[in-house]
């Protein structure tokens, strides 16, 4: 293989690992929320707030992992807010989500002001590329532990949905609220908890943004990644494992634009920068099937009704 192709492939591998983690956390968290029958569009705000809180706490305590935990707690608080507001009668979860998105980003910008300049301790990556002499491959294989945590959470969640009583309860609430009520399950409580846990995961995703990659806090940090991740859940047809795959794919495709330009394929970079979206669209069209998506989609989602 010639050097240019190798460079692009390594960059895509590195990109998949580096860029995918926040998408993974937000998408897996949202997957749980949507499985319970609600959409939380506010996760963009949760992601930004998580990033800010993680950076601030890491800066003050000197411990990046304390920052990750605090980001998760901040995310849960936003999720709990969404969950409890949506428990009120005649409240639309999509509208509340948009309000929560603006609220989350606003709070993050307000309190995040003093943390743009200082440098906080970051999460350290684990080097997996020791076997190779190629410096680029080594750097691509410096993997943050959160990447593995994200995959583990997705696997556990997928297993729990299929095999545990809790999983069954969440799925029942998401597919048919009347059936769940008939079984004596508190629909609002389950949805509240699902949204809270989803918020926790999205907050941790934000911590990855500010403490690992790109690894600094500023106001443009997320630039819409939270919203894209919510869309990835639909793309992944409400399966936590497919959410992970979608996030990896999205990260790799995102690395394509810069990598091609770096090896001299410079024409049409706007097109290559749009690769993740084009790829998503193409895969969605190719894999679309009216019967299957109807089966996968939680019946209680407002878009299903």
């Amino acid at each position, binding site marked *: 293989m010639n050097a240019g192709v190798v460079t692009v492939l390594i*960059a895509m591998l590195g990109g998949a690992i580096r860029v995918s983690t926040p998408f993974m956390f937000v998408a897996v968290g949202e997957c749980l929320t949507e499985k319970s029958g609600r959409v939380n569009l506010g996760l963009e705000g949760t992601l930004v707030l998580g990033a800010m809180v993680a950076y601030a706490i890491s800066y003050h305590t000197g411990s990046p992992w304390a920052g990750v935990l605090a980001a998760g707690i901040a995310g849960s608080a936003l999720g709990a807010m969404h969950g409890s507001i949506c428990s009120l009668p005649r409240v639309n979860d999509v509208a509340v989500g948009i309000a929560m998105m603006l609220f989350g980003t606003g709070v993050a910008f307000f309190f995040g002001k003093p943390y743009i300049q200082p440098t906080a301790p970051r999460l350290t990556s684990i080097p997996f590329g020791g076997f190779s002499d190629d410096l680029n491959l080594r750097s691509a294989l410096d993997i943050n532990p959160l990447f593995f945590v994200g995959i583990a959470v997705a696997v556990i969640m997928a297993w729990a949905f299929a095999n545990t009583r809790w999983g069954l309860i969440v799925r029942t609430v998401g597919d048919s609220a009347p059936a769940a009520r008939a079984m004596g399950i508190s629909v609002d409580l389950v949805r509240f908890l699902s949204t809270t846990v989803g918020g926790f995961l999205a907050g941790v995703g934000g911590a990855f943004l500010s403490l690992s990659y790109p690894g600094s806090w*500023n106001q443009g940090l997320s630039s819409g990644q939270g919203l894209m991740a919510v869309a990835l859940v639909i793309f992944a047809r409400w399966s936590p494992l497919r959410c992970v795959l979608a996030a990896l794919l999205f990260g790799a495709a995102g690395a394509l634009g810069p990598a091609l330009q770096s090896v001299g394929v410079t024409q049409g970079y706007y097109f290559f920068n749009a690769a993740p979206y084009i790829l998503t669209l193409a895969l969605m069209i190719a894999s679309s099937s009216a019967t299957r998506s109807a089966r996968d989609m939680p019946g209680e989602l407002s878009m299903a009704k």
Partner: protein
Amino acid sequence: MSATGFSRRTLLKSAALGAAGAALDLGAMGRAFAAADLTVGIVYVGARDDFGWNQAHAVAAEALKLVPGVKVVEEENVPETDACAKTMESMINLDGAGLILATSFGYYTPFVVDMAKKYPDVQFRHAAPLWNKDKDPKNAGSYFGYLNQAHYVDGVAAGLSTTSNKLGFVAAKPISSVLSNINSFMLGARKTNPKAIVQVIFTGDWSLPVREAESANALVDAGCDVITCHVDSPKVVIETAEKRGVKSCGHNASQAPLAPKGFITGAEYKWATIYKGYAADIAAGNPLPNFLIGGYESDFVQNTPFGAGATEAAKAAANGAIADMKNKVPIYVGPLKDNKTGKVVIDKTYGNLDPYLDNMNYLLEGVVGSIT
């Protein structure tokens, strides 16, 4: 945001107190007015401490605050919408601003132009060369620094800092000022290292931290060992270069603290020269210039003090280049060809401020990259 709201409220309160106190103590009022002869309102599109464009202006605002008789009011995060018109209006009506500095490109039309028509007694100056002497109000105007001269100096130092002869440039959009910075950086590098090439990656927008980090990584993967950029906030690019162990040159404001090992120097604006000049003109009762552009020869741009990444040879060459720029030695010595078709795009030698260069829509031979 909130800080401004607070200061505005305190200002109103003190104005009210002053009015109440006026009946008792007219002398105090008189002193209060003398303390602030000129109020300057500065409008920013982002955060003042963004390590980039806004910070460059904010640093100059701090210098302006030290000028006796000048009071500065600022507002950050003002979008390029009707919101900036409201901000300017409240600075004029509530804070008594006599000079408005609108620092973001998109503020000009229609907002600065409209406000200048509405408030003919207030002076408006905007940080991009957009003022048109036939069409636009006489109390409006433009100022701009030719940062490509400082990028040329960066290039001169970078040419001596590379071992792979490949320099990386992360750029936002292919507009003329960005292209001029890339081309000048390349010409500077070629001056000290004829074998140097500049590899450019366009991200497509002014602030995309994740893609900027990816671009910097991709350039290092492709063998570049000096990275520089033209994006709104170079923080992520410089930090990524440092993380990957390569050298870096900055842009807009000082990023030296972000790269304690690899920072060479950086291209910075020196808006303070312009802002203090305005304040001095107003204090002396002179009319403000409507159109003010310049580079090193006018002290409108500068280079960041050398970091640990600069070798002695690079420092000496860069200092020589700075002296050249101050003496108006031209950067674009023609004929120069573009990098796509090999066509001569710069037919002869142009002065550094020649308007011909403002319409740059090509990358020169020596740059690897495409504007489409």
